[in-house]
């Protein structure tokens, strides 16, 4: 029965496409899509309460199994909670062309993400994991008229699939060790296998969650519509890596290198992503950099041994990131550009501005919003490893405050230069409802600061939190305030907000430290060149093949001409000649390969054409001669068999 959780959104999405794709009313579309996601939410609640389980056998060794744990129940609730406003927003705002397709994919994605969360074996996980990649390809390339988007969609898919290979490898190792793929048995592997397994899983998680060096795929993903970005960043796709490691961390606790690798990569990504976001002139890319950074913080928490902190930060990040992407989408639509300096010229309704401000302050990690509590959790967890780490994490939090301020102030303060844009007046209040709902949830998240709430949650999750030291909290708060101030200053001063490149350093940051270029140079271009070369070589070998086969056929024909000869005589001689022909062909081929590469193709094709034309004239004749050889061999065998039969 539990299969209903992943299947219901997928099936309902297809039905939506069938019945609603041509619907004229955005409100009807929005309500029906949101209703599907809300029913999914109710289903999750009901399924957990009634203890549903799911299993499906593939063969005698492999079975797909799904089930709830407290962690996955929380994640499975978060996904529809965040996705419902997002699909509503999509139906209300995105362009009308192919809207049905967009909504279908968004709703379907919820089901796939639920499978990632609920999977209790590596096969179910791998299936959903890769389908999520394909769906994001379809979503990023939604506006197909622009060839660039196709390229970026493929970049995102290929980057994440490169990491997925790690998950494949981990799966193979688990099967080789245990003979099955259940999570429950993963702690029975040998130490070496566990270590390799952890490496594969970590690679896959890093690529999905946009950690270094995979982070830039999120920039490519920005070419999708705003609602797609909101869904990918907040509730699905990017979350998959963290959700997976949260679940597997207890089983991999013995792998000594795992903690340091998670912490260092997570921290590096948090700092690098923060710098990239701080420098980016593009509203959505700013948010994309911040997504990498915040998932980096979650990896720090997992690496320090507090997966529950990571899980809670994931939930709060989802709540605040979705409305910010919606705001970016509305702003980009009104300003007809995602450039922050263009956006700064546009007037926004006060309700929008203030609700987005709340989400931005949550992203900044300002007390008393809930995200600040989970961020403090990460700081303290890092502090338990070494105090300097806590300072570094707090610094990443300061960066977060800086870019949040930049983002928000661009929509807020520069009234003087603002113009009225009369094209936008068609928007009505209900279209902003999803933003308000999510902001309300962000505010609600503040209750996490209450000891009763967070300790109760911790008990239910069966997890402990790190104790927060006063000095850590003080440093964090100071850095957040400093970051907010600096971000405000950056906007107020103006320079660098606008035109693309202002300084080389910011250019480097805005290009993700040239990581995409590096990947292009080191992987894409060499592989392309290799494939072109191999293709050219293969073409030439094809020509050589024609030549050899033509010669072989000519030889057979000559055999056929002398078919009156005695079969016993014919065969040995024939095969001797075949040997000669082959030897000659291969030696000539080698000779040609070594010194005739440049001029060969033209000459070869002429030669081959000539010989083939000679052959073509008498095709049936050749077929007969081949048949004659076959029959000859067969008769010979029968004679031999008869002789042998007679003897025995």
């Amino acid at each position, binding site marked *: 029965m539990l299969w209903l959780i992943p299947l219901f959104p997928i099936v309902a999405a297809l039905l939506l496409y069938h019945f609603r794709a041509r619907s004229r009313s955005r409100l009807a579309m929005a309500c029906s899509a949101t209703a599907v996601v809300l029913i999914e939410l109710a289903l999750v609640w009901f399924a957990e309460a009634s203890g549903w389980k799911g299993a499906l056998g593939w063969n005698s060794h492999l079975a797909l199994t799904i089930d709830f744990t407290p962690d996955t129940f929380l994640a499975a609730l978060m996904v529809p909670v965040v996705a419902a406003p997002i699909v509503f927003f999509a139906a209300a705002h995105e362009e009308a062309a192919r809207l049905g397709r967009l909504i279908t994919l968004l709703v379907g994605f919820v089901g796939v993400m639920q499978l990632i969360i609920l999977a209790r074996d590596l096969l179910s996980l791998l299936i959903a994991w890769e389908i999520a990649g394909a769906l994001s390809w379809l979503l990023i390339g939604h506006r197909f008229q622009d060839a660039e988007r196709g390229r970026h969609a493929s970049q995102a898919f290929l980057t994440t699939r490169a990491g997925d290979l790690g998950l494949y490898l981990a*799966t193979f190792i688990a099967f080789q060790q245990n003979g099955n793929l259940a999570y429950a048995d993963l702690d029975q592997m040998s130490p070496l296998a566990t270590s390799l397994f952890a490496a594969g899983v970590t690679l896959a998680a890093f690529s999905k969650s946009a950690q270094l060096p995979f982070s830039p795929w999120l920039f490519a993903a920005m070419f999708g519509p705003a609602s797609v970005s909101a869904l990918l960043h907040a509730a699905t796709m990017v979350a998959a890596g963290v959700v997976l490691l949260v679940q597997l961390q207890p089983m991999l606790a013995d792998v000594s290198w795992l903690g340091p690798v998670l912490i260092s990569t997570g921290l590096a990504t948090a700092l690098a992503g923060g710098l990239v976001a701080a420098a980016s002139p593009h509203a959505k890319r700013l948010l994309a950099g911040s997504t990498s950074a915040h998932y980096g913080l979650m990896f720090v928490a997992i690496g320090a041994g507090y997966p529950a902190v990571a899980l809670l930060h994931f939930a709060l990040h989802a709540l605040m990131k979705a409305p910010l992407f919606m705001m970016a989408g509305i702003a980009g639509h009104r300003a007809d550009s995602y450039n922050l300096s263009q956006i700064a010229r546009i007037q926004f309704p006060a309700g929008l501005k203030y609700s987005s401000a709340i989400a931005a302050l949550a992203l900044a990690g300002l007390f008393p919003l809930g995200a600040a509590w989970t961020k403090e959790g990460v700081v303290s967890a890092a502090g338990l490893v070494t105090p300097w780490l806590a300072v570094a994490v707090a610094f990443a939090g300061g960066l977060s405050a800086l870019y949040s301020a930049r983002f928000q102030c661009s929509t807020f303060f520069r009234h003087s230069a603002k113009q009225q844009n009369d094209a936008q007046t068609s928007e009505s209040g209900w279209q902003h409802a999803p933003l308000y709902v999510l902001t309300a949830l962000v505010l609600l998240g503040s209750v996490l600061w209450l000891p009763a709430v967070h300790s109760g949650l911790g008990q239910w999750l069966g997890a402990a939190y790190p104790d927060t030291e006063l000095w850590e909290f003080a440093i964090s708060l100071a850095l957040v305030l400093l970051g907010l101030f600096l971000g405000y200053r950056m906007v107020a001063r103006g320079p660098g907000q606008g035109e693309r490149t202002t300084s080389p350093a910011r250019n480097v940051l805005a290009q993700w430290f040239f990581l995409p270029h590096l990947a292009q140079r080191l992987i894409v271009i060499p592989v392309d060149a290799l494939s072109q070369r191999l293709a050219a070589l293969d073409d030439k070998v094809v020509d050589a093949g024609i030549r050899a086969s033509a010669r072989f056929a000519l030889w057979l024909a000559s055999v056929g001409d002398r078919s009156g000869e005695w079969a016993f005589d014919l065969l040995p001689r024939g095969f001797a000649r075949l040997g000669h022909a082959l030897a000659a062909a291969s030696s000539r081929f080698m000779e040609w390969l070594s010194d005739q590469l440049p001029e060969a193709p033209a000459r070869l094709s002429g030669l081959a054409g000539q010989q083939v034309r000679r052959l073509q004239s008498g095709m049936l004749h050749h077929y007969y001669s081949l048949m004659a050889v076959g029959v000859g061999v067969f008769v010979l065998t029968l004679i031999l068999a008869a002789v042998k039969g007679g003897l025995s």
Partner: protein
Amino acid sequence: MILTAALAVPLLGAVALAFWRGWSQSAARLWAIGISVIPLVAMAVAWWRFDTSGTMFQLVEEVEWVPSLGMGFRLGVDGIALAVAAMSALLFTGAAAYPVDTRGSARQYYAWILFLEAASLGVFLALDLLLFYVFFDLTLVAMYFLIAGWGHGKPQRAALKFFIYTLFGSLFLLLAILGLYLATDPLTFDMRELIARQPLAGAGAIANVVMAAFLLGFIIKTPLAPFHTWLPSAHVDAPAPASAILAGVLLKMGTYGLIRIPYSMMADTFAEWALPLAVLALISIIYGSLVALGQKDIKRRIAYTSINHMGYAVLGIAAAGALLTGSEAARSMALTGATIEMVAHGLITGSLFLITGSFWQRGETYDFAAYGGLSAPTPKLAALTTLAAFASLGLPGLAGFVAEFHILVGTFGVYPWLAAIALLGLLITAALFLRMLQSLFFGQLPERWKSMPDLNAAEFSVLGILLLLVVVIGVYPAVLIDLIETSTGWLVGGQ
């Protein structure tokens, strides 16, 4: 009787087309579709009657011919043969139904299609080594005439090359068959006897020579690099349904033959040859995908991915046969995967080649740089091509993934390094298919394709059925695996 009927009906259908001249174009097509449905029904009945807990070969039909020489007309199926034969029968129906320009000689075209169907099913259903060989060679004749008569580009040259090259391979096959046959005592071509007796076990050099000849014959047919050079030109110049059959059915004869003959009948010799075979398969996986990435022609690109996919199938077979005892779970997975790959590749690549036919019918070119932005005028074509491409790049939830996952998991238990390197093929195939989709369906729509018609009902329903099965196998592969595991149980555990 049911297996004999599956062979005889299309053969008689072909004869009727060949010797009665009064067929109109549409009558010939309808006749061919109607006739080709009968073997499909026969396969469905066979599937239904097949007992998954029974003996290895079932539904056996046997007529002695020359008992003293062990020759006879013997048909029968095991799980692997039945799966592949059923897929083939379906693909033939699809190929017959798919619209194609028959250039005024529809009667001959459909006659050859039906003749090819009879011969192809014969290869999979034969339980007699001699019968197997005869059918194996007859498929070449039919395919030669289909390519030479209804191809484009330089069809005669391509057909000839295909013919000569694969006939060259099948000569070795014949010699190997005779070598194996002469080692039996009393003489027999009966496959069941040959599997039970392992005639060349412990025969040293002779066994190795025979094995080499078998492998060469089947590798050319499969084909693995570097014996693949006949494949691209045959595909590019063949009419699309013939390409679909060539990729979907004829290539399977190589891998099916590997399982049926050297793997089963010479198990200990095969185990010695398994590692080199696996390495060759790995080379094909990587080489095939890289060369495919370098192609600028839709059909050539898909043709080279066949080399990649058949490489996976051979890798699975080699891994399964690498040991005589031990690692049963992994080896059984590898062999199951290889069989699923045969079925999956037949359905997926068959669909892709049929799709290239639709492009040819509309645009008369395979160069994908000539297309662009086609999502707008032809949404159905875009959707089905995308689905087929994702299936081919091994996306989970579709049949190709099930196959490759089984093969690689199984191979990892025997040759971990080979399986790990083979994973790279997944990334390269993803890149090459996504790029193809990008240039076909993304970007601005060129003026000349503004009025390109979308898939018509016949095209849509054929592709729809094939791809529906791809989804069914991808989501719930147990339907297929139950059948296949009947055989892998015998082939992996029972030796």
